[in-house]
């Protein structure tokens, strides 16, 4: 049993490192090859975890090979659009200038219900409001509404808007985040003096966000 525990911990750490080397964090951002490899790695890693008669290397070596193959393939795909299209596919237009491409729907084996569900999730409840709809290689839909259905932006309304830059989390659970501070051009001195003004210390802070205009928001720990 102890061996099972040790193997599980070792394989868990190894898989984290392996997936980290692949370089993607979120499932939804993965390309086809990365998704396939992640699923295979999960399966391969579980086998030596459960079977102590099997050497750990029977899980480690295939994972190493898969990771290096994935890195090499992704570099090749970066350099060659032909290979990329072959492996990942191309974006397909489902709605072209307001007109539904029925042949494309058929070739993708996608029903109108599937399309309607995805359009609703993107905020388009009426297909007639859609000017362009493209299905990306990762299966997600990208949408452009017809001009009369789009929300106007500040430029169109001729409204001047102040540029406050990005609002970044500069304190998380009492810890200063240096990268975010750099992003907002904020130094530790300002943060500590602001906290002092509010009668708080770092340990009291759950989240503190700020931007380059020194506008901040604090959420205290309960």
């Amino acid at each position, binding site marked *: 049993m102890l061996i099972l525990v040790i193997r599980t911990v070792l394989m868990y750490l190894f898989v984290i490192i392996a997936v980290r080397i692949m370089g993607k964090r979120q499932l939804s951002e993965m390309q086809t090859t990365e998704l396939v490899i992640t699923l295979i790695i999960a399966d391969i890693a579980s086998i030596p975890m459960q079977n*102590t008669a*099997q050497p750990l*290397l029977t899980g480690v*070596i295939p994972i190493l090979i898969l*990771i290096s193959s994935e*890195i090499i393939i992704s*570099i090749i795909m970066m350099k060659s659009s032909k290979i990329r299209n072959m492996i990942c596919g191309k974006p397909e237009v489902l709605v072209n200038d307001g007109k539904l491409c029925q042949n494309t729907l058929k070739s993708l084996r996608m029903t109108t219900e599937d399309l309607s569900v995805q359009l609703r999730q993107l905020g388009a409840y009426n297909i007639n409001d859609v000017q362009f709809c493209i299905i990306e290689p990762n299966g997600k839909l990208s949408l452009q509404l017809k001009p009369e259905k789009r929300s106007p932006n500040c430029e169109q309304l001729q409204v001047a808007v102040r540029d406050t830059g990005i609002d970044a989390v500069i304190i998380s659970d009492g810890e200063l985040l240096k990268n975010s501070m750099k992003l907002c051009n904020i130094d530790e001195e300002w943060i500590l003096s602001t906290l002092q003004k509010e009668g708080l210390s770092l340990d009291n802070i759950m989240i503190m966000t700020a931007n380059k205009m020194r506008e901040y928001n604090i959420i205290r720990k309960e």
Partner: protein
Amino acid sequence: MNRIIVAIALLIISATICTMEIHSVSINSEECIEKLNETVNHMYLGNYNEAIKAAETASHAWKNNTKILDIFLYHDYVDEITESMSTLVINTKEKNNKVCSEIVEKIKVQLASIKNSELPYLHNIL
């Protein structure tokens, strides 16, 4: 550029481990077979003390090697041979020439099977 170096490094590590495995299994199998042949020869010549010594050396050497072999091979395969080795030692002490020959042949087949199954032949890959 960094990623490709990582990929190549991982491939080299994998290739090194595979080569070490094939080498380790091959060397250990050959050493073992040599000792086993020695055992059988001594038995048929009637040198039972020498035969027992050779059998015990082979068994002891194999048990030491299992620490390395268990890293690369399924433990069941290695344990089967260890069991056969122990049986060989007992039968050598009991001067059972016929049984000893059978056990030695069985061990040789098992060793050959382990060795060949690690080589990249088409029937192994498929």
